[in-house]
Structures are given as C-alpha cells and as structure tokens.
C-alpha cells in the first residue's frame, strides 16, 4: 500500500511526519502547478469547482509516482465537497486506475467507531504498536499546528520587518528544509527553530502596515496555487495578513464539532448576519469579516472558486457588513484562469484604497 493525498497548503508537511512515524509508504504529489490544473480539468466535469480539478491533477501525478491509496477528508455538509470522494472515486475508476480511497469524515457524521476503523486502515502497513500509532497521530497534529504558526507569524510580521523580504525568505526556507526531516521529532525541532528565528526578526515598530484578513472558501484560501499566491503577493507589498482558516483550524474544528463547542466566537460574531450553518464555511466567512473589523484590520479579501454555493451567499451578505461597519471588503473569484493581470489590478487597487483611507483622516470619522 502506497498512500497519497491531495495538496492543501502545508498539510503535506504534517502528512509526511505522520507516515514517516507510522512507517507506511507514501507519495507526496508534486506541488500543485499549472500541470496539475491542466490534467485535472481535462478529466473533471466542466462545471465542477476548482478544488476538485486541482485534486484530480494531484492524484494522477501521485499515481504516476506509484501511489495506490488515496486519503481525503470528507464532509457530509451541504456543499459539493461532500460529494467529492464519491465523484473522484468514480472518475478515477473510469480512467482505469485501481485505487483505494480512505475518507476521513467528521465523527459527527460517521460515528467515532467508523472513524477509528478508517484511521486503522491507514496504518495497516505500519509495524508500530497501538501506543506508537497514537503517538504518531498526536505528533502530526502538533506539526500541523507548528507549521501553521510559522506561516501565520511570517505573514503577519511581513508588514513590520525592517529588512524587506526576510520573513518570506525564512518561511520558504522553513518549508523547503522541512522535507529533509525524516521523523516527527526532528520535524518538531526544525519548526520550533524557525518560530524562534521569526521571533527575533528585526522589526521596525514605527511602521503602520496595512492589515488584511483573508477570508472565504477553505481550500482556495489555503492552497496558494489556487489563489495565485495572494499571500505571497501581499507580503511583497509589505502588508500584514491574517487567515483563520488553516489545516490546524480544521483539525480543531473537526474534533470539537460533535460537542458543538467549535468556533464559538465566529458563530457569535456571524449571528447578526447569518445565524445558520448553510454549508461550506459561509458562516465562518461572515464571522471572520466581523471579527477582522473588530480586531482593527484595515480590510478583508474574500476568495472563493467560481460556482461555490455557500460563498455566493456570504458574498451577498458582505456588502451589508462593509456598509454597516465602514469596512472595505474585496471579493475575488478564482477559476481556471492563470493570467494574473486582472487579478493583480484588483489587489493593487484595493491596497491603494486602504492606504488612502488610512492617510485620510476625514474618511475615518
């Protein structure tokens, strides 16, 4: 059994640690690129959303490298993502690939017992005892938390750094070198080292950078290829960004969801505008927008793939929040287009808008 999984931001770093520690064989698909998108859109239904297409590209690349089992996360939520696993299984079967799928679903939907059985399938090739397996899982969770912390720190500090580009350099270096860590212990040490490095980055406290919160559909905000590397671009402009939806957030949310204790603050903030769970992360998007305003951010950028149902609802609500709170929000819809000119124009104009607002006292009253 050779396991693979679709890319989603930094997930691969945690997955690598998990499989290394369990001692199971795995294939990390090559980083998502135009080639993955092309391959994916060739085989996917035309009207399907972008993440689906990119994921298919990832699978096929991984299969070419010897993978025979796919792990993905499921969701029985009312959004197309809930259908991904079934559709992808069918699609890959039709293409003649003989694959096993292991779908990790929320315990609230499939029950804890079933989840444990499925997780057990992942580690069938492992020689570890139960205790070590559990330890490997906990280490992987720790790794995902740490890499998200590194990323969040670097993105936020980018606005304050005294030497331009230092945070981005550290972040890229950290991710590249992570691939050389062959077990959980060295990985954790490595990530901690980079947190320490980021903690001592020379900052210019006289700077008052623009602060933007990245909100929207979870896959497209996390997977940098799908959003045309928006966070890297904003870093280059010297802007501090924050993103709540991360793989570690997702894990926490998943674990807490059966108790209904997940995301209490976001739910509370969203209540005035969207008190229901309407699928995907629409409610989170609304809650984060309100939260970003209260936390003193200058603006928010919503990103979602074309045709995303939940986010279309939140897109329609955001102008109301924007007006009520005098808080600029830009919506970007991503699709298969990789021409960046129009995209960059919108981002630059939005940044200009935020800058001029900041320097213009009148508009703040």
């Amino acid at each position, binding site marked *: 059994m050779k396991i693979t999984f679709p890319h989603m931001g930094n997930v691969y770093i945690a997955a690598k640690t998990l499989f290394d520690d369990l001692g199971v064989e795995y294939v990390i698909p*090559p*980083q998502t*690129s*135009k*080639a993955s998108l092309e391959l994916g859109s060739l085989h996917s239904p035309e009207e399907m959303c972008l993440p689906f297409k990119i994921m298919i590209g990832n699978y096929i690349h991984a299969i070419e490298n010897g993978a025979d089992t796919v792990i993905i996360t499921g969701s029985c939520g009312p959004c197309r993502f809930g259908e991904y696993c079934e559709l992808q299984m069918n699609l890959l079967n039709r293409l003649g690939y003989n694959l096993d799928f292991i779908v990790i679903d929320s315990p609230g939907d499939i029950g804890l017992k079933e989840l444990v059985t499925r997780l057990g399938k992942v580690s069938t090739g492992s020689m570890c005892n139960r205790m070590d397996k559990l330890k490997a899982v906990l280490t992987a969770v720790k790794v995902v938390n740490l890499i998200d912390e590194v990323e969040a720190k670097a993105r936020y500090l980018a606005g304050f750094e005294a030497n*331009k*580009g230092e945070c*981005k*350099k550290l972040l*890229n270096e950290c991710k590249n070198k992570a691939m050389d860590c062959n077990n959980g212990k060295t990985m954790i040490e490595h990530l901690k080292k980079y947190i320490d490095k980021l903690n001592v980055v020379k900052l210019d406290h006289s700077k008052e950078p623009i602060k933007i919160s990245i909100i929207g559909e979870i896959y497209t905000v996390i997977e940098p290829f799908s959003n045309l*590397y928006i966070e*890297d671009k904003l870093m*280059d402009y010297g802007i501090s960004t924050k993103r709540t939806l991360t793989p570690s957030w997702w894990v926490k949310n998943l674990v807490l969801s059966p108790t209904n204790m997940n995301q209490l603050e976001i739910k509370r903030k969203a209540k005035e505008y969207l008190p229901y769970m309407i699928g995907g992360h629409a409610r989170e998007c609304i809650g984060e927008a309100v939260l970003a305003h209260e936390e003193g951010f200058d603006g928010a950028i919503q990103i979602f793939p*074309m045709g995303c149902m939940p986010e279309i609802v939140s897109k329609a609500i955001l*102008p109301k929040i*924007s007006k009520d709170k005098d808080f*600029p929000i830009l919506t970007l*819809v991503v*699709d298969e*287009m990789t021409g960046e*000119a*129009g995209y*960059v*124009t*919108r981002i*630059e*104009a*939005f940044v*200009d*808008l935020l800058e*001029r*607002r900041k320097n*213009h006292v*009148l*508009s703040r009253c």
Partner: protein
Amino acid sequence: MYYLGVDVGSVSTDLVLLNEDKQVIEKLYLRTKGKPIAAIQEGFRVLKNKYDKSEIKAAGTTGSGRQIASTLIGADAVKNEITAHAVAALDTDSEVRTIIEIGGQDSKIIVLKNRIVTDFAMNTVCAAGTGSFLDRQAERLEIPIEDFGEYALKANTSVRIAGRCAVFAESDMIHKQQLGYNEGEIIRGLCEALVRNYLNNVAKGKEIQDKVFFQGGVAANKGMKSAFEEALGIKVAIPEHYNMMGAIGAAIIAKEKVEKAGRTSFKGFDLAESIFLSTSFECEGCSNGCEVVKIQENESVIGCFGDRCGKWGNKLAV
C-alpha cells in the same frame, strides 16, 4: 517640461503628455492589436520627432500591460488602472462621486467620497458589455464603431436584447434581425442591455451618486451615454479626454512621485528604433513550472516576467 503617461490596454494603447499645469498637450490613441511593445514603439516614433528626452520630467504607466511598458520605457510610477482613472477624474473635477469606466476587456465602477476611492468593482469572469463586444457587433453590422451610437439615438423604440452573455446577446440580435427589426432599434436595444448588465453585475450593491463620470473608450458611444442616463435618472458627464483618463492618471501619479524622488528613470524615445524580442519558456528550477517571458532589447535582456521566486525577474530574490 512634460509628464508622460502610457496606458497599455487590451484594445488601445494611449499616450499623453501633460504640461506643468496638468493640461493635455499631446495625446495619441493607438490600437494595441495584441502587440503592446509595437504599439508603444509606434507612439514613441511620433513623439520622438517633436520632443526630446530632456523635456520629459516623469513617466508613468498603467493598464493591463503596465509592467511590460514600465520595463520598456523606464517608468517612475506603475499604477493599476483603477487608481489611475480615479486620480485623473478627480483632477478634472473634484466633485465626482462615481466613475463608470468601460474599456476594451473590462468594465469598472469606482465610488469616491471626500476625494478618495472608497469602493470599486470590476467585471469578474465575463466580458459581456465591454468595448470588444460592441466593436465586434459594429463590425458584423458593417457600421463604423464611431457611428454606432448615432444609430441608437435615431431609433424611437428599442428591441429587448438579452445582455447577460455576449455570445447569446449576439444570437438574440441575429434572431431579431431575421424578424425584420431595423438596425437602429437593435443597436439601441443592445446599448440598453449592456447598461442593464453593467448595473446588475459590476455595479451591483454600489451606490451611484451624482456626479457621475463616464470614461473609457466606450464613452464615445452616445447610445450608451443616453442608456445610462435613462437607467439611472441622472445626468452622466463625459470628461473631455474620456479615452485617455488612464494615461492622464499615470502621468499625474508619476509627476507626484518624481517631485518626491527628485529624478526620473525615463529611458528616452530612442526605443522607437530598437528591436525587441520576447521569448517565453517554462522554468525547470522547481515544480512550480512558471512560464517566464523574457524581453530583449537589441539582444540585451531588459526584463523577465512570470516567475514567482524572483530567479529571473528583478523581484525580491527569495
């Protein structure tokens, strides 16, 4: 002393020279025809005969080809077209509150308050209602685009055309033609459909307040202006240099920038005679596989675009 503004758009490449009082001294409106470099060279050939490099105090670029234009001419300011349009409109009339801008491939709405941009929107993945579509229809009906608007004004009634999608709007128009409606009525219907599409799509949820500026190449179309006025119920003003606003904005921004920096990096008009060669290749440095475009001027590389890491371009090397 003059300030140069270059707006390299999808359909047209505009060049303007402003004097110290930000008055337009020279303006050139050229077709890009998919070759931004050639269009800039063509413009520079004209300017070269009249002006000298030393007379240009600052140069700015804007439009979707702003990066390439900046590399070519050595721009002091490279600005997105939304900000450039807003700057130019505010300079023309500081009372302006809403800017409707319709260009070749995109349409925008810019909302201003207290002389700053407070909100904007651009068409998303659809080009319905933009200049290219009108251009194509004019061509199909064999009416010069300059006269297109006149036809709409002559018609007393209009035919309803579905404006959501450019392709289906065209088939709708063909059906109506086959039924025997005259050209004027169809063109007027088309203008109304485009305005409807604009207001429901680009301007959705935006407050359109007096005073409204209509700029961009499509503003030349009188039919569109009157369709906007009818739909909005307020007067729509068209600035004198409506199709040059982007370039004017770029020139003004460059002027401000050079006044701060104290010097210009403008390379001069000689590039009109240079030979430019652009080649693209896929970088094999990592799995990103960026498509890199390399631009050479007389066999020396002047710039690369399209790489993410900065290995080729002059971006931050990380």
